[in-house]
């Protein structure tokens, strides 16, 4: 990969907490820490995969970057031609311009398109809003994006129910592409689709990325899908990042015990690979009452005394760009 990569997003100590209120006066009695102190950089033109089990905060993270959820703390810096601006402090106008550059594709293609409107109407709206005044121009853009996702342009006059799940998801991607965004945040784009259709959509997304030099933030729970799509992968557990690595490195040498367990839990469609299963005990704890210290310590097979009290910081380990938050590696750093 290129030595010098341009950073498009810089996320610093991002927090999204949801308050838990009680009583008639809505007294705040606690917080659900959905995203808790997350820092990372996204490079232009890459696919950054975000994986984790349900409830780990990966979708909230995606929504917070889009500013669909309000950030409780931290910064989301977006690259405007070399100058970084903090998205969390944007006013309405700036936000409007920002949304032209960053678009989102949602999980469920069945509920993302208005069933009462023709595809044409659904497709025209973002263009109207973003100031394409001339109808001929609008139609030209619509034809162009539909061609990109391999859907015939005359299908524009149909209603969403006339399409299959895979086609609908392709339509959702096409609609997001209309305003020529730089970043596409995909929240579980293929988890509602069948395997044979899933492969079609994934390959299509890869082709579009090459064509438009898009940056993807690919959020999914299926590690094998994420690994297929991504250049780098972020593994999240209970609102925190536990490991960031190149896609290949994460598979070849996972460092964090949680990543190892996650990898070994995935069933492999190969009957000759006998692998040692490492089955995690218990379930993900509630994000309201997070365990002290490392959030993973009560399920971790390598738990030490220090893990119960001290929250591990992210450290570099092994190959370049491979970072992990685990005391197994902070200890080594100190000794070395």
């Amino acid at each position, binding site marked *: 990969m290129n030595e010098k990569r341009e950073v498009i997003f810089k996320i610093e100590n991002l927090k999204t907490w949801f308050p838990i209120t009680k009583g008639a006066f809505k007294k705040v009695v606690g917080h659900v820490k959905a995203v808790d102190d997350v820092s990372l950089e996204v490079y232009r033109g890459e696919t950054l995969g975000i994986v984790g*089990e*349900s409830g780990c905060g990966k979708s909230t993270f995606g929504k917070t970057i889009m500013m669909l959820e309000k950030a409780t703390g931290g910064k989301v810096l977006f690259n405007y031609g070399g100058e970084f601006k903090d998205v969390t402090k944007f006013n309405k106008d700036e936000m409007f311009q920002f949304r032209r550059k960053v678009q989102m594709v949602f999980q469920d293609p069945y509920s993302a398109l208005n069933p009462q409107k023709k595809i044409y109407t659904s497709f025209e709206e973002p263009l109207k809003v973003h100031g394409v005044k001339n109808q001929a121009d609008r139609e030209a853009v619509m034809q162009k994006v539909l061609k990109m996702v391999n859907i015939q342009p005359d299908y524009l006059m149909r209603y969403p129910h006339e399409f*299959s799940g*895979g*086609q609908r998801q392709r339509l959702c991607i096409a609609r997001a592409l209309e305003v020529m965004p730089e970043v596409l945040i995909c929240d579980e784009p293929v988890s509602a689709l*069948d*395997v*044979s*259709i*899933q*492969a*079609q959509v*994934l*390959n299509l997304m*890869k082709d579009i990325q090459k064509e438009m030099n898009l940056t993807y933030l690919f959020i999914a*729970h*299926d*590690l*094998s*899908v994420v*690994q*297929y799509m991504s250049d780098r992968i972020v593994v999240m557990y209970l609102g925190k990042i536990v490991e960031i690595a190149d896609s*290949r490195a994460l*598979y*070849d040498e996972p460092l964090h015990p949680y990543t190892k*367990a*996650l*990898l*070994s*839990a*995935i*069933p*492999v*469609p*190969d*009957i000759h690979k006998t692998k040692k*299963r490492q*089955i*995690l005990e218990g*379930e*993900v704890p509630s994000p309201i009452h997070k365990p002290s210290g490392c959030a993973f310590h009560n399920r971790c097979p390598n738990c030490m005394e220090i893990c119960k009290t001290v929250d591990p910081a992210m450290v570099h380990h092994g190959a370049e760009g491979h970072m992990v938050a685990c005391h197994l590696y902070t200890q080594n750093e100190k000794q070395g």
Partner: protein
Amino acid sequence: MDTKEIILDVKNLNTTFVSDRKEVRIVKNVSFQVKRGTALAVVGESGCGKSVTMNSIMRFLGKNAKIEADSIQYNALRDGKVTEYHLEQIKNPNGPEMRALRGPDMSMVFQDPMSSLNPVYKVGDQVAEGLIQHTGMKKKEAREKVLEMFRKLGIPDPEERIDCYPHQFSGGMKQRVVIAIAMICNPELIICDEPTTALDVTIQAQIMELLKDLQVKEGKSIVLITHNMGLVAEMADEVCVMYMGRVVEFGSLEDVFDRTSHPYTKALLRSVPVLGLADGQKLETIPGSTPNPANLKPGCEFADRCPECTAACREKDIPTFEISPGHRVRCLKYKNFPEVE
């Protein structure tokens, strides 16, 4: 093979649904066998009829479903003696004959644990219900049995958890409760309809381990309905691949994975993303999408999406060929092999 070895023998099962005054055949001439003490995996995409097949056997379908079969034979083994049941002859799907079988002989685990438990009853009572119904056991005795079952299935502090309501359980624990309901009357055949689709991978691994244990240690026969090829590779002894209501390939795990014969099975196996794919390697895709079962063309259902399709494929119904003992494929590529009815 004798009835001691085979627990469930289905021959030419057809299920038709009536909708909009039109009859749509969803399951077509499905035949398969489940061997005692083994796991059969039924794989296919959504809408291929895998759930309908199993629900037809259990008679869980609505009034608009018409079930026809040459034979659905269930062989119960009790104290070394085999009793044969011919399920296709039972008229009333909810009559006493069928009800006596569901629970003590065959039972089912459903996909979504969130919706298969009643939210207003304590889980312990829901598990005990089957036991009290079928054996006439007293409540107190049944409670002991339920506790024992909870312990076996790895539900922590069963004494406390038995009096909890479903919403107090997590998804994985709820699925264990559903398995407990299926297991409580000690059935021989357990049909699991996508038991882990609603669960996370680490929880899925726990549940699959549990099911494998039941099969290996207690000699239960398991039918696993799934679309996940990875789970099939880990769980199954035999595999039945379905497409548009037909069994397109049936064989042992090695037959289907190593000597994959039907073009659909091949495509299905290649389109799944696996961990550790080389950089730049592309997933293969199956072109097009599944056809509408209400207006199918004659011939092979897969013809339009098949890379090896010939003119003969579109002419008439495709018979099934046995390419090696126990390995049956429904594809004209193998027309030199003996045909099976």
